[in-house]
């Protein structure tokens, strides 16, 4: 009975469709969408436990044995990300209740969040590369709707670019799939990995691998991130938080799958290129984070820096670095969502977008100010918060492979992250208050509570890293030894 594996995909789709019919009942929609996320979190915890006992789980749809049918494969890596996704989405939904506004709630906001999560979870769990394309499209279509929902001028303008660049990226994905199928004659990821290993990764396959690299780099914002800051700074806060937390991570996940499972035989080409791209991404992200005074732009460039940082872990691909990358991915989903919520709330409270026009928020909203402090420290990687473990492990991997340039770049980027956020902190949170008591907007509890919950998550992930370590090391072990994954899929039990 492995049917549980399909639940993270099927639950949000079915309930998302159901919610479309419950359009007038906003309260019911809220409850159902929140319960769905909680249910997925529980399901993924159960799955994590069972993977620890019995190894990788899989479900063959329609009873077609791999490599012929479509299948879902749940290894620790995928399930950890599903778990983080559901927690992050649940907390974001809480924030949405008090901030998104009736207009959007009436226009199917909740169904589309559920469909987005369905696409994200499907992408994490699928074991078939064409199915990955389909799940990507499910996620993207939901994201197109969420980014345009509300129809403000700037929103429409930026979302048009976002949609067009993603349509083009999906096209490249299809081209890469066509070449892959033409060369290897299969689409099952484990089977692909086996065939690539048997036939050897000749130049044609490496070219295809590079095509996939371009596709997923566009989705993840690795080097090709030019679309990201614009499109992540226009939608409502909670949508931006969901995008910042989830969408780029799916691209990163796909890169990890491709380059730890299938195309692993020419690391001097592919992994070197990933390292180079990640290095440039970090550098450019740092420049962006320092260049702007618009809070949302700074936050968006912080996403870019994190993408580079995680993918350095993939580039060196030692087990320690992979563990670090997994920790950092989970940390980053939580911390980036929190950072987006904080930035959005600052803009909501002051009505200004630039941090040099805000001041002294901590005097009006003390709790809020300290939350900003926590996320800043967490993103900078100061122990015992969650960013620390990932950074140390990735650093360890970099030292093992003696990539000292990348090491320096990665850790200087932490300082830049700290500086870019400290600038906001000192200017907008500290300092003399410029909001008089009469003008002070009340900070709704519904907005503060989710931020506090995220802060608890990041502290818990920092202190509880030891408790998660068995799952994370299992995930990294599977990534480092692709034969575990291949056997689990093709052994035909």
């Amino acid at each position, binding site marked *: 009975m492995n049917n549980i594996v399909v639940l993270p995909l099927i639950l949000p789709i079915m309930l998302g469709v159901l919610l479309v019919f419950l359009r007038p009942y906003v309260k019911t929609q809220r409850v159902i969408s929140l319960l769905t996320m909680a249910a997925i979190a529980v399901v993924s915890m159960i799955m994590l436990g069972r993977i620890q006992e019995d190894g990788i789980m899989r479900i063959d749809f329609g009873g077609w044995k791999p490599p012929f049918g479509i299948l879902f494969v749940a290894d620790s890596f995928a399930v950890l990300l599903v778990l983080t996704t559901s927690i992050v989405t649940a907390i974001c939904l809480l924030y949405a209740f008090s901030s998104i506004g009736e207009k959007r709630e009436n226009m199917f906001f909740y169904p589309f969040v559920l469909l987005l999560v369905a696409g994200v979870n499907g992408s994490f769990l699928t074991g078939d590369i064409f199915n990955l394309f389909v799940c990507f499209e499910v996620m993207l279509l939901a994201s197109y709707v969420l980014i345009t929902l509300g129809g403000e001028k700037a929103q429409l303008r930026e979302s*048009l670019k976002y949609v067009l660049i993603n349509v083009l990226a999906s096209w490249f994905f299809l081209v890469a799939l066509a070449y892959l199928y033409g060369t290897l004659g299969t689409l099952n990821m484990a089977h692909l990995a086996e065939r690539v290993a048997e036939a050897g990764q000749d130049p044609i396959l490496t070219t295809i691998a590079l095509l996939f690299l371009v596709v997923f780099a566009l989705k993840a914002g690795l080097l090709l991130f030019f679309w990201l800051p614009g499109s992540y700074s226009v939608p409502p806060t909670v949508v931006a938080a969901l995008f910042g937390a989830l969408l780029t991570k799916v691209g990163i996940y796909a890169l990890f799958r491709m380059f730890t499972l299938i195309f692993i035989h020419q690391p001097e080409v592919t992994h070197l290129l990933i390292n180079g791209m990640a290095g440039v991404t970090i550098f450019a992200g740092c420049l962006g984070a320092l260049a702007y005074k618009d809070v949302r732009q700074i936050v968006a460039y912080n996403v870019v820096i994190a993408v580079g940082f995680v993918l350095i872990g993939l580039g060196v691909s030692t087990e320690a670095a992979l563990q670090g990358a997994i920790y950092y991915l989970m940390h980053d989903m939580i911390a980036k969502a929190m950072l987006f919520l904080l930035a959005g709330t600052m803009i909501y409270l002051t009505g200004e977008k630039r941090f040099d026009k805000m001041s002294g928020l901590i005097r009006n909203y003390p709790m809020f100010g300290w939350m900003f402090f926590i996320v800043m420290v967490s993103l900078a990687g100061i122990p015992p918060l969650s960013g620390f473990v990932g950074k140390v492990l990735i650093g360890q991997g970099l030292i093992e492979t003696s990539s000292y340039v990348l090491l320096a770049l990665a850790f200087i980027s932490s300082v830049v992250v700290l500086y870019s956020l400290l600038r906001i902190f000192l200017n907008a949170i500290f300092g003399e208050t410029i909001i008089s008591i009469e003008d002070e907007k009340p900070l709704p509890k519904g907005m503060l509570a989710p931020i506090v919950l995220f802060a608890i998550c990041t502290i818990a992930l920092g202190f509880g890293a030891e408790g998660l370590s068995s799952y994370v090391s299992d995930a990294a072990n599977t990534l480092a030894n692709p034969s575990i994954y291949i056997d689990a899929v093709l052994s035909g039990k």
Partner: protein
Amino acid sequence: METLMILLIGVLIAVATYLILSKNLIRVILGTAVLSHAVHLLILTIAGVKKGNVPLLKEADAPYTDALPQALILTAIVISFAVTAFVLVLAYRTYQSNGIDDLDGLRGPENE
């Protein structure tokens, strides 16, 4: 046959690239539509055109034609159909609210 189709794909991609590089929004969207047709043909061609019988067990003799590319294309067509429809509506809304159907005019904050 395959050669002809590959040539056709090349022409389609050239046309689509030309359209996508233009400034008019509708042309760009049509370009993405043509682009998707090109890749569907590519999938069909690259997997081999008609290499055997209809893939129905007991109804026809081996060797069978691989039916998978057609299933893939069908899925891809549905997706590109949905996306194109969405982009067209989005472009129309953008035109309505921003009054512009030209990519140059959709540059960024300076024009707000």
